[in-house]
């Protein structure tokens, strides 16, 4: 009973808010939705905390599509994996709700905003509690829809609309892969329900498809394409930085903590399939490492505070996929878990910074702010330290474990991924602290007006950030045994493939890399060593390449968008206007008109002409009647 309550309370509250929205003050919807998600959060904590006692279960609500031999149900599944996700989603969502009530309070559409993030929460919960692929797909599309609506929340801004459309369309490309994967699964397995699929796995190992694919490789590759779209992996990542056009709480909730991790969740959910697909695992490892690397390199050159964090998210998602590619599913899940909290901390902190600097997002126009906004400053430090993997913070446990596992991964791709993970750890530290130094230290580059106006956020905005930063500090040390130690038997009943335990060491030489990054950032941006100027002037090509985001957008414009546009243009001009309309409506109307003009002259207005017509037809009809077949 507790599970449906968790899932459906946000939906109920969203609908209620939607109904009362025109009749009450915005504050009522704020309270309503926040309380609803808070209720869900309490219930999911109740479910999540007694780890060792819960029983994996599936609640079938009612049948959806009855097919011959297989009926899909709307159902709610619960197991440890779902428990983790429920905890992450409801907690972050609740804190973001609280944050939004204040952050959005001056916005006209704040009620709509609250309703939408509540609806998003429902769809995300619906996604993670899915017991089969079909329902998962419903939630998958639902979060995509909410993401679209929330990115385009400020729909009077053209850039926001563009970004929303971009996110929606790019996600559809990934969804195509997911649909194909589902279809193939249904074709071969005759079911879409996770447990049944996993039960039938042993009989399916040796099936091979045309063109030399093995069945498992193909299915998982298609599912991975779906996950790529949702989780912004290299190639389908282009929407994520642009998605920062949405309000900051949205970025924190959807584009850092929950929705973008749905791909990781899907991969972990399908880990028994992935274990039988070595080729796909290699591809995932490769794509994950490329994503981590390219996003980190872009992040070091960007100036928009939210974009930096967005690329950082992209990079961290790359880490998660590297973990999946090396078979370390629990590690990926653990990194997802910790990342949700510290990245939400960073985003909400960034929101506070933007708020303090009067909606300025360019970090080159900030600086010297740590005295004015000390709490936010502290929170950003905590978030950044967690992000770079500083030992007591949560990021340390998850990231170190992934790097540790990668160092044992065999094969050339494994080695490549290991090196990339090390380099990205260094870059992460660099861009994280570049952000902090530029925003909070150095000399102020902002207008005097803005500087005079810098102020700490209200307590309603600080509270969620503080809560998140507390979680970002402690959640790792509290739960790493749970996630990564097979002896704890946390994952029982969730079909997640386990890997051997990880041992942490504070004297790992790997830890030097983030310190190196911090020192470099300190040298450049505090001590003002002109290294960055040197890079800009002497390595212009590389700098431009990074600054323009590897020119992926331009590449897509040339390769995909322009050909499609010209094709559409041809079809429009030739196909539609000339052929379809020429033969269809235009031709018909013109012919009718023409014939009408011709026949019009038959109606002369002379009675005698009408008499003549009557007699003509009489003369024609008489033989027909008397000599024809109508006797």
């Amino acid at each position, binding site marked *: 009973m507790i599970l449906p309550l968790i899932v459906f309370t946000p939906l109920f509250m969203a609908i209620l808010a939607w109904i009362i929205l025109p009749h009450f003050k915005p504050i009522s919807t704020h309270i309503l939705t926040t309380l609803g998600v808070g209720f869900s959060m309490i219930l999911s904590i109740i479910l999540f905390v007694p780890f060792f006692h819960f029983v994996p279960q599936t609640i079938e609500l009612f049948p959806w599509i009855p097919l011959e031999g297989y009926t899909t149900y709307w159902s709610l599944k619960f197991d440890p994996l779902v428990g983790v996700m429920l905890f992450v989603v409801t907690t972050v969502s609740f804190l973001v709700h609280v944050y939004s009530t204040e952050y959005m309070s001056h916005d006209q559409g704040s009620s709509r905003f609250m309703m939408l993030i509540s609806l998003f929460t429902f769809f995300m919960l619906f996604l993670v509690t899915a017991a089969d692929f079909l329902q998962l797909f419903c939630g998958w599309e639902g979060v995509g829809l909410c993401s679209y609506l929330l990115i385009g929340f400020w729909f009077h801004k053209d850039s926001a609309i563009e970004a929303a459309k971009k996110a929606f369309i790019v996600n559809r490309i990934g969804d195509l892969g997911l649909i194909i994967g589902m279809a193939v699964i249904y074709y071969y397995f005759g079911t879409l329900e996770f447990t049944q699929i996993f039960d039938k796995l042993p009989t399916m190992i040796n099936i091979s498809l045309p063109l030399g694919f093995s069945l498992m490789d193909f299915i998982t590759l298609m599912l991975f394409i779906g996950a790529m779209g949702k989780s912004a992996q290299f190639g389908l990542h282009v929407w994520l930085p642009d998605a920062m056009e949405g309000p900051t709480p949205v970025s924190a909730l959807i584009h850092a903590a929950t929705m973008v991790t749905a791909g990781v969740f899907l991969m972990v959910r399908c880990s028994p399939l992935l274990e039988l697909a070595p080729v796909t695992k290699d591809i995932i490892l490769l794509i994950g490492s490329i994503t981590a690397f390219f996003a980190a390199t872009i992040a070091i050159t960007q100036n928009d505070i939210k974009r930096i964090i967005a690329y950082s998210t992209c990079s961290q998602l790359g880490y998660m996929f590297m973990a999946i590619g090396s078979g370390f599913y629990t590690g990926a899940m653990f990194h997802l878990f910790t990342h949700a909290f510290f990245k939400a901390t960073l985003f909400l902190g960034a929101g506070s910074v933007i708020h303090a600097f009067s909606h300025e997002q360019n970090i080159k126009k900030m600086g010297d702010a740590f005295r004015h906004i000390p709490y936010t400053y502290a929170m950003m430090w905590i978030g950044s330290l967690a992000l770079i993997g500083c030992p007591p913070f949560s990021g340390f446990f998850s990231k170190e474990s992934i790097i540790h596992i990668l160092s044992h991964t065999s094969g050339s791709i494994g080695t490549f991924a290991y090196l990339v993970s090390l380099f990205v750890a260094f870059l992460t530290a660099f861009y994280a602290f570049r952000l902090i130094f530029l925003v909070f230290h150095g000399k102020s580059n902002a207008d005097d007006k803005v500087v005079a106006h810098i102020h700490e956020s209200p307590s309603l905005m600080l509270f969620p950030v503080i809560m998140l930063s507390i979680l970002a500090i402690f959640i790792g040390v509290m739960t790493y045994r749970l996630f990564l130690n097979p002896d704890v038997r946390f994952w029982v009943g969730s079909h997640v493939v386990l890997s051997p335990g990880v041992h942490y060491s504070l004297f790992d030489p790997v830890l030097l890399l983030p310190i190196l990054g911090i020192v470099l950032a300190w040298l450049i941006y505090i001590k003002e060593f002109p290294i960055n100027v040197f890079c800009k002037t002497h390595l212009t090509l590389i700098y431009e390449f990074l600054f323009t985001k590897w020119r992926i957008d331009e590449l897509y414009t040339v390769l995909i968008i322009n050909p499609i546009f010209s094709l559409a243009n041809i079809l429009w001009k030739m196909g539609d206007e000339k052929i379809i309309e020429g033969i269809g409506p235009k031709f018909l109307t013109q012919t009718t008109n023409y014939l009408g003009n011709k026949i019009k002259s038959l109606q002369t207005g002379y009675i005698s002409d009408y008499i*003549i017509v009557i007699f003509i037809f009489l003369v024609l009809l008489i033989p027909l009647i008397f000599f024809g077949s109508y006797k």
Partner: protein
Amino acid sequence: MIEQIVFYTLATITVLASICVISLNNPIYNVLSLVVAFFGVAGLYFMLNAQFLGLSMIIIYVGAVSVFFLFVVMTLESSGYKHEEKISWKKKALGIFLGTSFGAEIASIILLKINASDFPKEGGSFTLKDLALSIFHDHVYLLELMGIILLVAMLGAILITANKIPIQQTLKKQKAHQQNERSREDSVKIVKVEFGKGIK
């Protein structure tokens, strides 16, 4: 033999007179030709053993209706009617073509489908008494109906012609120049309507 001579003579007279009716250009000649045609048909009626009908036809048509026609024609001519238009030869050809083809069709139907041997050899021989019984006894309601029709026709004719008001004023027809000339002030009146009161 004599019968055939009489029939063909009368038929020729009738047809020629009918042609004159439709082709002559002076209405008076048309009417007079019609009188001749009626005479011919009346003669045929005598052949068909319908002497009363033939005579009454002559009396009614030649004596009354034709005079009526002539009267109207003369009234028109006295009030300034001039015969102007010529019939275009196209219309003439079309009319003749249609008429002949129509006649030929019906005639061929008659000749092909109606067999004279299906009818009794002897023609009917009726007395006037038979006709009177048929009209005034067997079909007396039809007779009453006919009386009503004649009454209505008489009333109609009187109403249409004997109207005191000049006919131009009673005619309902479009007057385009008046429609075009009327101004906005004449046609539209702007009223401030109070809520719930309506327009008085």
